């Protein structure tokens, strides 16, 4: 069954359709969330809240757009809220610095870095975290600030700095 048909069934109260949607989407959502938060409890809670929200919000699904993107949009915002709620919570797992990535891995993957990739990987972790939250995860400045636990102004200045560095590296 297509994802959109599943959503329509869920809107009509079909638990089996929700179970199918979960089997199909929860694994990759978990992997992606786990790259943004090291705490398994928080990831599990974010997943749970995502599918409860999908159950409740299926009726507002307009039938356009992609179900995967919709679910990720919910999931990353649930994660933002949960991370913001836990004051002394371990910070984001982040992605290991390329320098830390093992030589074995580099050989295994055997990928040539394009200019853009090199430039992006040269950014400091602080800057890359902002780029990831705003550009890749599609969060607003406010949401990115809550996820990264920094002021909104800092998000803006770091984004501006990242842009400038990228422009310099690519020119």
């Amino acid at each position, binding site marked *: 069954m297509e994802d*959109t*048909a599943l*959503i*329509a069934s869920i*809107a*009509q*109260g*079909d*638990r089996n359709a*929700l*179970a199918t949607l*979960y089997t*199909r*989407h*929860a*694994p*990759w959502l*978990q*992997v*992606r969330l*786990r*790259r943004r938060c090291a705490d*398994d409890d928080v*990831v*599990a*809670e974010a*997943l*749970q809240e995502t*599918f*409860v929200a999908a*159950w*409740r919000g*299926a*009726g*507002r*699904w*307009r*039938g356009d757009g*992609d179900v*995967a*993107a919709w679910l*990720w949009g919910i999931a990353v915002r649930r994660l933002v809220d949960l991370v913001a709620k836990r004051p002394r919570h371990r910070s984001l*797992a982040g*992605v*290991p610095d*390329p320098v830390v*990535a*093992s030589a074995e*891995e580099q050989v*295994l*993957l055997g*990928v040539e*870095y394009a200019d*853009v*990739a090199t430039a*992006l*990987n040269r950014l400091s972790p602080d800057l*890359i975290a902002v780029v*990831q939250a705003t550009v*890749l995860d599609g969060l607003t400045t406010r949401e990115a600030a809550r996820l990264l636990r920094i002021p909104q102004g800092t998000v803006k200045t770091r984004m501006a700095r990242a842009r400038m560095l990228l422009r310099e590296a690519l020119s």
Partner: protein
Amino acid sequence: MTGWHTDEDWLAAYARGGLDRVRAASVEQHLIGCATCRAAVAPHADAALLARAWTGTVDVLDRLRTSPFERLLTVLGLSPSAARLATGASAARRAWVVGCVLVAAFAIVARDMDGRAATWFLTVAPLAPLTGVALAYGPGVFAMHEVVAAAPYPRLRLVLLRCLPVLPTTALLLVVGGLVLPGTAGAGLWLLPGLALATLGMVLERVVGVRAAVAGLAGLWMCGVASARITTGSVLGAFSPAVQVASSVIVVGTVVVALVGARRIRGVR
């Protein structure tokens, strides 16, 4: 996405957090649009964590309360999903039920004052099914409207389901009419014009939108009552046999057209 898919080694490295940011980002961009690679990354997920989150999800869903009316409909034989469609109470509908109860209560209280309570009741009561159906069904106030637009749920069946909650209040108005108006026959006078207005509302909703349909029909009805009062000296003129026959024709005609249309759609599919 056809042809290119993320390399299995990349997916494995991505899942255990080993891929650098740039390649991780390109994997994520691809995953959003590719069901094949989403399925390929699934074995790398933490099965215990997934099971825990699903148990939690089911627990929360079980705790989400079902309304008494929804439970009653299930007991009466409707499937749970149909019962959920029929209820799905909105704040606007609750306000409507309160409004109907107030109309009825006012009619009973004013009964002993003079004959005007009865005529006032007759004027307003036919509008109750119209606004009730519109609130139960129209877009803007009805969250399910978008689902219906997206899902192939039989429209007529949905309309009938959504009108179920209107029945108890309509029955209440009938009972109150019986108390207020002389003779039991008088109590039902408003029923046929009321149903005709409601069905016309459903038809016009598709053309001009729910707000314009309700406002237009309500305005027309009030004008009709006013002119009946001027020409015949009583609002009862708006409930003459001719009006009752015309109302029956509208109700029966609309239902027949809807049934034929539904069958033709099913035939085409």
